[in-house]
Structure formats: structure tokens, C-alpha cells
């Protein structure tokens, strides 16, 4: 199993009826949120952020707690949703298209609507906290769920049959077969989700529009405050704390988990070495932990197993794991009917709100979309221009890789949104101003996906092919044309899909900035969304959010999906 850093796209036609329904439902949901926003307070005071270094541990803890809460939510969602989709054919028909659309939606575009609607019904503090957790959750959950679902549906049939023949109950089957089989993919995707989550956390912690200050006490807000006040030392403290937090969590949590999950590898082929983890190694040698496992954990597990096996024994077990089929029950029919009506009503409301918009507002909307599109494209092209040569150089040279990779990993772990206030401060006075700063931010958020994928692709080029190319003495250009570019193409495409998604997301926070009590905006869809949020122009907020979502889904479905297909069919190494 070799992982690429990005989503796996299912092989489906580019837009289906299911997608249309999901998009309609999204529109309905957003319009509901926007209608709640009318009641949101017009002025909102943010927290007071202390720049004292002694406040940093508390801020780091707060930020991490938000991440942890969102991650737990994502994990619970993943297990329930993925399991339902894998076990029941009826559920699968609904759940998978929903997942597919949600995966390609720019999550950050929801932030204003979620913040506004929550602050309409909740006190200020919990509203912003819940909005942040929800936002991180929506950025983390989809790829984890998809990975879990895919694992469940690709369990080798003989392992499944063995579970049936030996009459495993649902619980025993889940914990001996299904969960272990999915563990490696789940841990890997959790790691990716966690890393991506920082980007959204920072965005949520620093979100301010006009008189509405939605900031949250945390590392993101600290960095923004420091940049705002021009306190270089505080900026440095903040960045160091942030990187330290991320690196420590990586070392004591994710690396050991990944190393541990390696025992759930199914292919028995040796070769792909496990991830080493010093901390995991330390834990595995601990005598105390060993004793605890034998004396406490094992009997407890036995008890839980027996109890759960007893309670779940009577659940129907579909032989061969084919999933239950047949007619949906009345309850399902009524529920889905009610849901359909709700969606239709919401869609109707949304349409009403949109048609009420004067024609004149649509023109800046299209211009904004175009401007943001150009920015995204520019960021991607710049990223490609440097990551492809650099990634190939690193990937094809083990010595260089062992030296550069750790540095790149640390630099890449800094979420771009955390540095954004600093960059804005530096670039606002430069020619191009926020326009350039926005591209830089997009670039910072996206280039790493590309770089890591190119490195992975280049290091996966089979040695035989490289030797052959050497023996043929292909000139430099042919070498790239015949060997390197085709070999890394699938990786570049996966990286670019993720990077593109990240760039669109970044537009929400990049095209609008508050600095020194003044607002700065540039032309773009993100600026429109921010402007509409601060002015309370809710129909425009709905229109621009929907326009952004539709555009991104459309680009994903047409351009990226055909590239992905090309990569899978033509340039796959077998």
C-alpha cells in the first residue's frame, strides 16, 4: 500500500443526479443558515489577546483542545457513517454521493454562514468555539470516512468468509476484522486530516470582518495580534510555539500510532519499511505498560467483548458481507420523504433569496470568481514551477532526501493561515499589495502538497527504468519527457487536486484583511463573501458562497477528474 497525499476519486461520471441533489441540499442548508443570520448581533467584540510569552502555553493548549474535539467528532462520524455506507446498500446509494460532493467543496466558505447563524442562537463565546470545531470537523472528516469506507469494502472475501464460518458476531467481526483492516488507512488519513485541520483552526481563530470580531483565544489570534501590533518578537515566539506544538504532537502521538498501525498491514510483501518512531519504541519497552496490559487491559477487553457480543449477537448478519438489500422500510420512506420536502423547501427559499438580488450584483460576483480563479491558477503554476524540479531532485537522490525531507516537513507543518497576518503586514505596502499577498498565501498553503507528491512519485520510479534510461544515454530533455514526467504525472495530479482545493479555501481569508483598525480588500470572491458578512448583506453572502461552491465542484468534476482518469489509466506504474 503506497499512499499518495490526497483524496482518492471514485470512478464515476462527472456530474450525476445524486450530485445535483446534494448540491441542492447544501444550498438549502446555507439559506437556512443565512436566514438565521438576520438575527445575529451586528457588533461583536473579540477576546483580548495577551502578547506576553507566558500566555502562550494556555493558547497552545486551547488551540490543541479545539483540534482534539474536532478530531474526536470526525472519528466518531467516520466510524458510524463509513460503517453504515459499507454495510447497507440503501444507505450507500445516499451516503457516498454526499461524501463525494462534500470532499470537493471549499469548506472555509461555510465559515461566515456558520459563524453568523450560530451567534444568532448562542452566546458569543460558545458560538465561535462551536463554529471553529465544526469547521475543523468538516475539513477532517471526509477523507477519513472515505478511507474507512473503502477499507471496509475491500476486505478480502476469504477473510470475511472465515469470520462467517467461525460465526463471529457483529462485534467480534468489527474488532477482529473490520477495524484492524481499516486501521492503517485510518491512521494515515487521520494524520493528514490533523495536519490540514491546523489551517482551518488558524483561519477560524483570526476571522474578523468589520465590526464583527469572531476571533478566539489561541495561537492563531496571538500571531495575528502580534503582527497587527508590529511586535516581531511576539511573532517569533508564536511561530516557535506553534511549530513546537505541531512537532511534539507529531512525535508523541502520530508517529507512534503510525508505527503501531503497521502491524495491521495486510500485504505480506516485505519492502516498504515501517515508519520508525522513537517514542513508540520507548513505550513498547516500558515494563509498567506491559504489566498494565496483562493485568488490567486484557481482562477489561475480555469483559467488554463478552458483554458486547451478547448484546449484539442477534443482529442480522448478511452472509458474505453483501449488505442488506430488499425493500426499504416504511420508516425509511417517511424519513426520506420528509427530508426531500425539507430540501425542496430550502431550495425554494434559496432561490427566492437569490432572485431577489438585483441583476447588478451578479456582475461583480462573476468578476470576483474570475479574479480568484486567476489567483488560484497563478498559485498552482508557481507551485508547479518550483516543486517539480525540486521534488524530482529530492525524490531521486536518497542522500539529498534524508537531509532535506525533515526540514521540509517542519516548514510545511506551519499552517499558512497562521503566517498570513505576518505576510499581510509585510506586503501591504509593496506594489500589488493584498493582491500579491493573497497569491502568496495560496501558494504557501498549497505548494507542500505538490512537493510531497512529486517526491513520492519520483522516489517510486523503478530502479530498472532509471538504469535503462541511463544506459540509453537519453539527453536531458528526453529523460524528462520519456521517464520522469510520465512517472510523476499521477502524483502531480493528486497533489494539484488537493492544492487547488486548498487555494480556493485560502481565498476566503486571503482577499480580505483587517490591519491596524482598517479593512483591506481586493477583487475576488473571498473579498465579496467577507464584505457581505460585515455589511450584513445576506442574499449576497448566500449567492457568493453558492457560486464559489458550484464553481469549485464543477472544476473538480470536469478538469481534475479527467486528469485523474488519464493518470490512472495511462500513467500508472504496475
Amino acid at each position, binding site marked *: 500500500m503506497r499512499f499518495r497525499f490526497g483524496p482518492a476519486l471514485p470512478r464515476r461520471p462527472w456530474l450525476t443526479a445524486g450530485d445535483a441533489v446534494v448540491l441542492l441540499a447544501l444550498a438549502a442548508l446555507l439559506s437556512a443558515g443565512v436566514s438565521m443570520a438576520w438575527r445575529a448581533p451586528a457588533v461583536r467584540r473579540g477576546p483580548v489577546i495577551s502578547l506576553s510569552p507566558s500566555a502562550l502555553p494556555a493558547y497552545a493548549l486551547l488551540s490543541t483542545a479545539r483540534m482534539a474535539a474536532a478530531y474526536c467528532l470526525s472519528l466518531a462520524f467516520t466510524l458510524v457513517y463509513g460503517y453504515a455506507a459499507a454495510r447497507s446498500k440503501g444507505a450507500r446509494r445516499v451516503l457516498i454521493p454526499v461524501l463525494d460532493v462534500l470532499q470537493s467543496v471549499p469548506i472555509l466558505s461555510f465559515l461566515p454562514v456558520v459563524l453568523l447563524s450560530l451567534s444568532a442562537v448562542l452566546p458569543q463565546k460558545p458560538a465561535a468555539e462551536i463554529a471553529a470545531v465544526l469547521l475543523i470537523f468538516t475539513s477532517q472528516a471526509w477523507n477519513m470516512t472515505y478511507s474507512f469506507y473503502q477499507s471496509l469494502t475491500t476486505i478480502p472475501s476469504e477473510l470475511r*468468509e472465515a469470520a462467517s464460518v467461525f460465526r463471529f458476531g457483529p462485534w467480534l467481526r468489527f474488532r477482529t476484522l473490520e477495524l484492524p483492516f481499516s486501521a492503517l488507512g485510518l491512521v494515515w488519513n487521520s494524520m493528514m486530516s490533523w495536519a490540514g485541520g491546523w489551517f482551518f483552526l488558524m483561519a477560524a481563530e483570526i476571522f474578523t470582518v468589520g465590526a464583527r470580531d469572531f476571533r478566539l483565544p489561541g495561537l492563531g489570534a496571538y500571531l495575528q495580534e502580534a503582527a497587527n501590533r508590529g511586535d516581531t518578537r511576539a511573532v517569533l515566539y508564536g511561530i516557535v510555539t506553534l511549530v513546537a506544538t505541531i512537532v511534539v504532537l507529531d512525535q508523541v502521538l502520530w508517529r507512534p500510532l503510525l508505527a503501531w498501525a503497521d502491524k495491521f498491514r495486510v500485504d505480506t510483501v516485505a519492502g516498504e519499511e515501517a515508519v520508525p518512531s522513537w517514542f513508540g519504541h520507548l513505550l513498547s519497552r516500558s515494563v509498567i505498560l506491559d504489566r498494565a496490559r496483562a493485568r488490567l487491559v486484557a481482562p477489561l477487553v475480555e469483559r467488554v467483548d463478552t458483554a458486547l457480543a451478547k448484546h449484539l449477537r442477534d443482529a442480522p448478519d448478511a452472509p*458474505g458481507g453483501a449488505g442488506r438489500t430488499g425493500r426499504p422500510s416504511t420508516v425509511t420512506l417517511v424519513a426520506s420523504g420528509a427530508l426531500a420536502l425539507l430540501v425542496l423547501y430550502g431550495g425554494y427559499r434559496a432561490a427566492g433569496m437569490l432572485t431577489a438580488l438585483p441583476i447588478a450584483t451578479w456582475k461583480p460576483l462573476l468578476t470576483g470568481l474570475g479574479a480568484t480563479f486567476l489567483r488560484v491558477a497563478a498559485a498552482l503554476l508557481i507551485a508547479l514551477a518550483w516543486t517539480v524540479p525540486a521534488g524530482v531532485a529530492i525524490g531521486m537522490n536518497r542522500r539529498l532526501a534524508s537531509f532535506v525531507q525533515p526540514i521540509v516537513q517542519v516548514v510545511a507543518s506551519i499552517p499558512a493561515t497562521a503566517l498570513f497576518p505576518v505576510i499581510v503586514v509585510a506586503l501591504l505596502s509593496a506594489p500589488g499589495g493584498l493582491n500579491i499577498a493573497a497569491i502568496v498565501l495560496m501558494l504557501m498553503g498549497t505548494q507542500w502538497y505538490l512537493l510531497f507528491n512529486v517526491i513520492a512519485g519520483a522516489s517510486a520510479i523503478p530502479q530498472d527504468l532509471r538504469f535503462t534510461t541511463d544506459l540509453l544515454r537519453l539527453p536531458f530533455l528526453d529523460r524528462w519527457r520519456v521517464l520522469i514526467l510520465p512517472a510523476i504525472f499521477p502524483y502531480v495530479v493528486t497533489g494539484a487536486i488537493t492544492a487547488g482545493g486548498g487555494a480556493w479555501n485560502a481565498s476566503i481569508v486571503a482577499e480580505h484583511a483587517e490591519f491596524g483598525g482598517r479593512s483591506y480588500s481586493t477583487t475576488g470572491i473571498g473579498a465579496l463573501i467577507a464584505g457581505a458578512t460585515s455589511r450584513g448583506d445576506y442574499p449576497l453572502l448566500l449567492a457568493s458562497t453558492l457560486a464559489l461552491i458550484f464553481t469549485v465542484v464543477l472544476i473538480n468534476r470536469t478538469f481534475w477528474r479527467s486528469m485523474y482518469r488519464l493518470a490512472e489509466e495511462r500513467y500508472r506504474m504496475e
Partner: protein
Amino acid sequence: MSAAGNGSLLELQGVGKEYGGGGRAFVAVRNVDMTIRPGEFVGLLGPSGCGKSTLLRIITGLSPATSGRVLYRGEPLAGINPHATIVFQTFALYPWLTVQENVEIALKARGLPPNDRRVVALRLIDLVGLDGFESAYPRELSGGMRQKVGFARAMAVEPELLCLDEPFSALDVLSAEALRNELLELWLGRSIPTQAILLVTHNIEEAVLLADRLIIMGKDPGRVIAEMPVGLRYPRHRKDTAFMATLDKVYALVSGPSKPETGAAGTAPGQPLPPKRLPIARINGLAGLMEKVAEEGGRADLHRIGSGLHLELDDLLPVVEAAELIGFAQVDSGDILLTPLGQAFADASIPARKEIIAGRLLRHPTIRWIYETLQQDDDQRVAESYFLERLQSEFGENAPAQLETAINWARYAELFTFDDDTDELFLEA
């Protein structure tokens, strides 16, 4: 235990299994009658795709039959058969559990407390000769050792009927041989409480080595075509004349006599006759077979040819079928005989071989239909999907394999070929 079911352990009455429905149904097995009595070691033998694995899954209750009755000790079977268990071809061990845990898990599912599980598991691991490996993970074991764990796990639940699903075919030759002997020792020595064993295999030699009785299946649709007792005493030796004679007899039953050539039977899509399938064989294998038989003087024992070319029955039979279809060879009581045409082919140069094959292939309706369709097209290029769609109505889910084989053969004969970039078939200029 009741004496019902006239002493039989398992009885199948007119069992059939269809996948899909309506006009597109695929018949995996049809109308199978079979009985397994206590004390028997039954070998279920047949080429791949004949539905023997399907039958095994019906017997164990993993997948229900779509017609007929499955009786266990005279009672109709509902759901998983609690008295049967399977040893799987690919072992089906849980890679994240140790050897001992893999055996224990079967007992845990039955609700045994931890101490009892441990005792039983350790005894069985000992019995199959894996003591010392209790805490090893499957990935640390060789294939043969992994399958021993598979046997230990199966025997842990003390099944009355032990089903073996090609248990030796994923092993290397030596491990397979050793494990076969160990299984026989356990079975003949009555050191396991198993009442009967059902061995599914496509390896004729293995079946004759182990089983008391053979049930032989054919395909299209999967059905029982013959049954024969193996009257040989244990231990059986491959070089015994009686063993060789039995082997010949089984080969004759499995491969069947050649049907007379009936010209262009069946079908270009739309024609009334039943479809005539292309055997899924690579054309290179055909050339190899012809040369080998020619070397042997134009007539040879199928099972000797098979072992001489290191081909399993599954790989050999399609090639033999292809040779029959093209008119290069005939099969008669376990022997393959070259026709004069086959002899000519074996002696010919490569270009001449292509000529011969091309001429013969155009007699096959599917290939001729594709060829003529391409000829009539203005560019002499037609999309693959065009052919696939029409073949689907004849061959259902086998259509892609049929088309792939047709292309493979036609490529060799330089009749037509396939453009992978555009997914089109086109005529060779």
C-alpha cells in the same frame, strides 16, 4: 444424533445457483445431487469456473442456493452450517493476530472462556507441529506453516464436516506434499473428531492421492458430470501402475472426448445457435503445446504433458480446448492426438504458422464477425465498446474475457488488433 437422512452427513438435492436475474442470469451450478457419508474423504474435482467453490459455499451456508435442497443430517440447512468449517486457499488468517490468537478467535466466537481457549489452541498448535510459533505473526511464517494454522483453527471448533478449498494450491510443491501427508496421517489415525472431509481441488493427482471418492464437475453450466470411487489403499504412490491407471481414467473423465467439428456452430451476435465460447487461452501456450505433443510423436498422455510443461489442469485445459477448436488436436481417453493440420503447424515456420492460424480463426463465428465488421467500416476501425455491447448479449459477464482472447488470437494471426489509446479495434494493414 438422529438416524434420519439414511445415514448421510450431507445431501444436496437438485441444487442450483444463479447470479443476477431475468435474461442476464448467470448459472454458476445447475441441478447438483451429491451425498457425503460419515467416514468419507470426498474429492470435488473440476476445472476453474465449474462452480466447485460456489458449491462449497452453499454446503457451508456462506451463500444460499437459489434452487434445490441442502440437507445436513436430514435437516434443511438455514444460514451458516454450525457443523462445518473451511480451510481456505489463501489461508484467511488475520495478519494482526498471532498464531495462537488466530486459533483462539474461532473459540472466542463460540463463547469459550480465555483459559479453555488457551488449552485447546495450544494442543492443536502442538498437533499440527507448530509449537514454538504460538506468538509468531502469520507474516513471519512460510506458506506451509500458515496453512497449518489454518488447519489448527478449523479443527479447533471440532467440525463434523471439514471442507478444504484448494488448501494446497497456494503452497510450493514440497510444502504441499508434506502437508498432504500430515493431513492424511491425522485423518487415517483418527486423531481428529472430523466425520468427513470434502476436498475441493483442480489438481487431479492430489485428489487421487487423498480421496476415497471423486465427484467430477464440468462447466457451462457447472454440474456434476461423473462420480467414481478411488479403490486404492493408503499410502498411495504416484509410480504405482494402479495409481497411474486411475489418474488416466480421471483425466479422460475431466477432459471428455472431442466433439466432432460442426463447422461454424453458434454465433455472431444475433444468430440463433448457442454461443460458442473461445477458451480463455494465450495463443503462445498453443504453440508450446503443439510442439510438445509433436515431440512425443503426435500422441501423448494429458497428465504427462501437463507436468512436463509445468501446467496445472486449469491452465492446460483451455489450451487443449483451443487446439481442439482450431482443429489442431483431438482428445481421446486422456490422450491428446495431433491432427495432420496440427502436425503441420508444429513443423511450420513462424510466418507460416500465422497463415495457418489466420485461416482457421476465420472459421470461428465471433472472430469472423469482428473481422467482417471491421472490413465493412470505412476507416476499418471500430470502437471496442461496439463489440463488447453485442457480445454481452451472448456471453454476459464473460464478454470482456471473450473479446480479449479474440484480440489476443487475432493479433498473433495478424488479422486485427487493438489500439489501447483510442480503445478501438482495427484491421492490420
